């Protein structure tokens, strides 16, 4: 009789084992979202922002743009506030690290597919 190869016993084991993948867009349970995942940019504590533009200067992807504070924003000292263009952001987290006032964070919401670039601007 032909000897079994290395892989056949493994195959038999896998017939009965649990599925390794997740049917992702339909089922979200079972996705590994670790604590500290670097994903969507967020302007977390606007009141503390001074508008110093450090975040804009350090961003390697030129994803942060400083705009004039709109009436509904909390007003910063220099009158500017950052917005993030998600289509350019590479989620490196350098802005979060460099912000002297701890204003920015990267949240763990990783679903960042949009139909238009306009939807990808985070205010």
């Amino acid at each position, binding site marked *: 009789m032909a000897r079994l190869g290395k892989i056949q016993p493994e195959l038999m084991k*896998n017939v009965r084992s649990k599925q390794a993948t997740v049917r992702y867009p339909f089922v979200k349970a079972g996705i590994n979202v670790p604590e500290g995942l670097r994903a969507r940019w967020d302007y977390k504590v606007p009141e503390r922002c001074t508008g110093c533009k450090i975040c804009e200067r350090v961003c*390697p992807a030129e994803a942060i743009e400083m705009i004039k504070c709109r009436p509904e924003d909390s007003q910063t000292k220099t009158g500017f506030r950052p917005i993030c263009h998600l289509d350019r952001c590479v989620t490196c987290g350098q802005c979060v690290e460099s912000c002297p006032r701890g204003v920015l964070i990267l949240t763990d919401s990783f679903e960042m597919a949009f139909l238009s670039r306009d939807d990808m601007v985070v205010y």
Partner: protein
Amino acid sequence: MTSAGKRIVIPPRVTIPIGPQHPALKEPGMFKLTVEGEHIVDAEVNIGYNHRSIEKISENNTHLQNLYLASRICGICSATHNGNYAQAVEFAAEVEIPERAKFIRTLIWELDRIHSHILWLGVAFHEVGFDTAFMLSWRDREIVMDMLENISGNRIHHDMSTIGGVRRNISDAQKEQMLKGFDKLEERVVFYRDVAIHEKTFWNRIDGVGMLEPPIAKKTSAVGPTGRGSGLKVDVRFNDPVQAYIPMIDTGDFEMVLSDRGDVAGRSVVRVLEVIEAINMCRWLLNNMPDGPIRARVRPRIQPNEVLARHEAPRGELIHYLITNGTNKPDRWKVRAPTYNNWTSMAHCLRGDYLADAPIILAAIDPCYSCTDRVVIVDGNGETIRLVSLDNLRIESNKWHKEHPRRE
């Protein structure tokens, strides 16, 4: 049929282009194989379809921004480029980073090697048509991907190294979790080692295929597992250790993995055994990690200096050559990725083998095309490809940068 009717057919020489876009290739590259029947009699390798001008972009970026750019040179070995650039800047600034930072940086490098080699093994299984093992090995690669994601916050672009140390610490809970993960991973990798060596489906396709004899490997300066698979003792971790490799190698518990086979099988065996070695290295790093700070302060302006940083990436020796000029931007940054060295031996490996073996021979050096691409200017309208001399390139790129200024 009578014997008189029998015709002897001499197969004509045909040149088959593979690429730039081809199902057997994962990235764009162009191979011209001249075949006689099924035998490859000559091979020509052309690369340069994926040039991204990273070195030029870097001259307009600060060192801090270049870290992230460096990491994006390659998706698979992002940690190596990122860490090696940080190391180069630290050499130039002549600062010593904290011990714990060295250990964490080395740990990320080794984890990167584990996932890169398992990925390669899966690709090798796939290239010879053994897709079951491909799926299984990639499933188990998730163990190390999850570890990297847990400690760095990203699956692919870990971006852990920064100038002066690392960006995130490793907690005790993470350490325990990783040690547990390594036990499971080691069991699986030992199984894949046995599959690679004892499973005839795979072994018969790689045994004696793509021979690269040691003298030729030496002449074409093969590096990494390609060189070690031909018995060359080339491994920067052992020959010229940096970071936490110094105390680790000094323990004498670790050995360079070598094989004198010289064929694709040799390279496969080296890679699989290296994964097991890397798992042991990671365990040692975790268990001996000193306490303390993870980051030293480095001024953004780096003194004028000229340095060469070497590191053993998963594919071989990686060199970053950096000239700093006293500002916070580099004067020149040159990357020599390992695949660049290994290409030279490719034509020799292909010659004399069967056409059907070409994909696995190409895959056996674990090529990373985009790390490698240098300047060619392709004119789509005139249908020309031209190589440009450095002086002309400088004039042209200065012109381009004048016309496309950086957003202020």
